[in-house]
């Protein structure tokens, strides 16, 4: 730990910039597609981009990752030719970005569609703007819509599509001109894992066809699928390389530790100096150290002395997220979670008292049956994760559970009450953070906190202390006078979270609290959520990050308005039949295409450069079988082994299964 802390950001940056990447490349990259030299962009006094140099090869998927406000969007706007840099240049195929517009496709953070035009009209307009003939638009448009499985929706208004579909349409619109370079600025934020994976499968295919793709994403599992990744922070690029290079760069090994009391184990291990870093991921701790063997010994010893039972310790390669978090910690320092100033005694309740309960909960909007007979129970002190694709009915369910909308039928329990959820007495005990940013942009941060403290009846004497805590938690101590509207999205989420728990609720609803929040801050969120649960607060949370969903005590998986699976993360994963085999191949994309054609497509998915295949038969024979099949197609399998099924694999399998059974008609 010490050794790492000594590296100042400057040193890291220098080291990383000079790093070469010498790994053999699977895709031929003959020409430089994008060349950025000394790029700077200032907005008034604020310098968003402070000297960026980049070279991106043709056919590459290049990932730009970094926390909120790192300057990624500015780089995209300059590359797209829609903004002038202050100094420096950005060349695409040797020409200025402005001149090469016709060979660029650009997807902005917001859906860049006309919501009041239909799918076909959107495509037509985009095509005609680029001077394509009607026949061409028709031909290419249908091709992409078919590819995205959207050809049935040509007449639907763009505004009525789900988030995932909108992004696919936006991509289709950008593709219609058959651009050579595709710029994607956080295209999948707020999109569910299934749609995200489909989206990335498409990207992989496009890149295999020779398209250059630059993409920004807050999801690091997506970044694993890039050929190369650059880490941007504070307007500067700190590290560039293939995901593998970045992962191995630190020279650290990773230990997956599964133990009985993870939160206590984490606190204990963090204090051990010979361990470089300890991070909590779902149902395990990731311990980073230079030497795996000694680290394992130290970990076992430490936990044993504290009386924590160790279930399993496995060595593995560090993930991109491990690396990212480690680097951000070096640059930013740890986001520490200050102790919450508890002022109220938690009411004593019978063990296993139900905080949130629903029995046969239904909701109909006209003809549309949004929620179909949901049964769930959340006890005090429990974290319950509600997962599901966009449009599965999660938000509707949450709104019914907390009394924002009336259920069509069904019984509800909330904070020991059976009804009258709209009374201020009940709401006093509830914390709620909605999907959208729930702060007033035109108030300062302090004013916002003051307002929520006041309206929830936090006694005036306690307010200062509570507000101070919320500011510290958001990493904004001393900056309370900033206008909330000027904060990047991720920071706002943190303040909103602070605002939602100042009154010490006993039931907490969090609807996608961490969407768009960088990994470091996300960890602070979960630390706090865990602490609240330890105090006895019931937490109901939704998220699209399935890794963090592992931290829930129990999960519910929603598909098309129904709860199809429920249980602890381990139970949910165990319920998934079959084994997961991870393959490391010479041509992952082709391999995926091949296998998808041969077996049910939900069984095969790409994780970065690795292939996940779910098989029903015995593992060893399955591996042999797969190797044979791939070898016949001329694809070399470097490595194949059984891997634990992750929540994401389960999620995708369940949703795909429901789709096959006709429960979900993909959309509608």
């Amino acid at each position: 730990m010490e050794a790492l802390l000594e590296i100042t950001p400057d040193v890291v940056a220098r080291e990383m910039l000079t790093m070469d990447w010498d790994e053999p490349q699977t895709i031929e990259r003959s020409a430089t597609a994008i060349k950025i030299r000394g790029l700077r962009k200032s907005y008034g006094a604020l310098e968003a981009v402070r000297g960026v140099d980049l070279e991106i090869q043709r056919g590459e998927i290049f990932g730009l990752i970094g926390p909120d406000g790192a300057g990624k969007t500015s780089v995209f706007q300059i590359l797209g030719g829609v903004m002038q840099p202050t100094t420096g240049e950005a060349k695409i195929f040797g020409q200025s970005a402005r001149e090469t517009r016709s060979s660029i496709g650009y997807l902005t953070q917001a859906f860049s569609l006309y919501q009041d035009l239909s799918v076909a009209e959107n495509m037509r307009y985009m095509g005609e703007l680029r001077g394509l003939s009607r026949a061409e638009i028709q031909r290419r448009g249908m091709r992409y819509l078919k590819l995205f499985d959207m050809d049935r929706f040509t007449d639907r208004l763009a505004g009525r599509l789900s988030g995932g579909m909108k992004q696919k349409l936006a991509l289709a619109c950008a593709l219609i001109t058959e651009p050579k370079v595709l710029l994607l600025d956080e295209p999948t934020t707020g999109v569910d894992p299934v749609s995200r994976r489909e989206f990335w499968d498409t990207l992989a295919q496009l890149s295999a066809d020779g398209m250059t793709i630059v993409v920004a994403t807050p999801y690091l599992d997506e970044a694993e699928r890039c050929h190369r990744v650059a880490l941007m922070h504070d307007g500067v690029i700190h590290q560039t390389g293939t995901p593998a290079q970045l992962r191995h760069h630190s020279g650290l090994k990773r230990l997956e530790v599964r133990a009985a009391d993870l939160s206590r184990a984490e606190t204990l291990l963090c204090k051990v100096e010979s361990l470089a870093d300890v991070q909590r991921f779902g149902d395990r701790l990731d311990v980073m150290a230079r030497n795996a063997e000694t680290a394992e010994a130290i970990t076992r010893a430490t936990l044993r002395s504290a009386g924590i039972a160790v279930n399993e310790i496995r060595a593995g390669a560090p993930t991109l997220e491990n690396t990212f978090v480690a680097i951000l910690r070096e640059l930013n320092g740890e986001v520490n979670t200050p102790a919450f100033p508890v002022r109220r005694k938690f009411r004593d309740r019978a063990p296993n008292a139900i905080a949130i309960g629903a029995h046969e909960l239904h909701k109909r909007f006209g003809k549309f049956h949004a929620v179909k007979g949901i049964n769930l129970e959340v006890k005090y002190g429990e974290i319950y994760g509600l997962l599901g694709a966009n449009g599965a009915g999660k938000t509707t369910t949450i709104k019914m559970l907390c009394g924002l909308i009336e259920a069509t039928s069904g019984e509800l329990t909330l904070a020991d009450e059976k009804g009258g959820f709209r009374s201020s007495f009940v709401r006093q005990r509830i914390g709620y953070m909605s999907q959208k940013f729930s702060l007033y942009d035109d108030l300062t941060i302090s004013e916002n906190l003051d307002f929520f403290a006041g309206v929830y009846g936090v006694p005036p004497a306690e307010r200062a202390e509570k507000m101070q805590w919320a500011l510290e938690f958001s990493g904004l101590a001393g900056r309370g006078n900033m206008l909330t509207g000027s904060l990047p999205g991720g920071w706002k989420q943190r303040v909103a979270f602070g605002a939602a728990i100042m009154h010490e609720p006993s039931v907490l609803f969090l609807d996608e609290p961490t969407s768009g929040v960088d990994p470091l801050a996300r960890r602070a969120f979960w630390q706090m959520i865990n602490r609240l649960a330890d105090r006895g607060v019931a937490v109901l949370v939704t998220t699209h990050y399935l890794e963090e969903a592992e931290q829930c005590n129990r999960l519910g998986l929603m598909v098309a308005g129904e709860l199809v699976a429920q249980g602890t993360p381990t139970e949910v994963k165990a319920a998934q039949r079959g084994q997961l085999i991870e393959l490391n191949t010479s041509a992952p994309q082709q391999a995926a295409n091949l296998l998808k054609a041969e077996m049910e497509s939900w069984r095969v998915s790409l994780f970065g450069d690795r292939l996940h295949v779910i098989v029903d038969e015995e593992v060893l024979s399955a591996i042999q079988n797969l190797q044979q099949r791939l070898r016949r197609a001329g694809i070399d399998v470097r490595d194949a082994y059984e891997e634990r099924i992750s929540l994401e694999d389960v999620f995708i399998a369940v949703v795909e299964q429901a789709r096959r059974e006709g429960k979900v008609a993909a959309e509608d």
Partner: protein
Amino acid sequence: MKRIIAQMRKELTQIFRDRLTVALALVLPLILLVMYGNAISFSVTNVAIFIEDLDQSPRSREYIAAIAASRTFRIVSLPGGLGKDEALAAEVVRAVITIPPHFESDLMRGRNAEVQWLIDATDANTANNLRGSATAITQSFCRQNGLNPTAIRPAVSAEMRLWFNPGRETYKYIGPGTIAVVLALFPPLLAALAMAREHEHKTILQVYVSNISAREFLLGKTLAFFVLALAEFVLVVSSGMLLFGLRFVGDPSPFLIGALIYLFCCVAFGVMAGTAIDNQAATIQAVSMVCFLLSFLLSGFIFPLSNVPSIIRWVAYVVPAQYFIEITRDAFVRGGGWSAVLPGIFALTGLGIFFLFTAWRKMRRMQVNV
């Protein structure tokens, strides 16, 4: 050219998809037409007055009958407990007429009699009109009763001729103006909104990324809303002619040409406003303020512009409605033909080009301005 048409078609699709927009463009103008045509008039009739007859003689009753016979006044009695002054202050009556005692005997004896007319002059224009009516009624009463003063033949008398609108019909004045004012509001408002919406929803970035030029983009937008304005024009002019009984006086071609240029000019203003302000709500405020208020007040729509102080009058020179109102009045009332209309047409063309050019200057780089 293909891109201009593509842009235009997209705008039209969006316009007709939104019911509120269509209602604004096609229904509201008709409502305003009816309202303005009827609400803006200064020829008062049936004004409530109270007559206090302190004489109660046949002569005084004849005088009252003369007042009652005029369409201008309507004689009412005061509700219980209300004095004359209170009735005037509470706007129960606009005027109180007092016929003095000995009215009849004074007249018979050839002594001067005076009837007192107390007129509420808060509305100066109406008060002026009422004063005229009072004098006219009294004079005609004198004539009919042979009470003329010793006939001295006046030195000079004028033969009054009211040209173009001999019946002094309000419709002939307000009607054409209403057409111009109504057209000045909605086409630019909707054009400005569509423009600002692209900025607000960030769809403008997609336009920037494509290789459409600022000129093509702006022309496409302008054309789409021009088409909409044209539809509104046909609707408004035909119903205006029906409603106000307007007919073309002479050759309608200067009017039609002038109208096309006026519509272009209005839409161009909207496009310019939408380019300058990238927030929809603020755009509505600005455009309604400029188009509605200025076209209404500084165009000679209600009262002649010459009454306005000269500093404010300068503003009127950039209000397109000012020129078009004159063109419509010429077409429907005066019939002055091309020579009367040409300066206005030139001014409108100039303004339209200026508006579009300003929009182009702001947009020409087709990039995010920081």
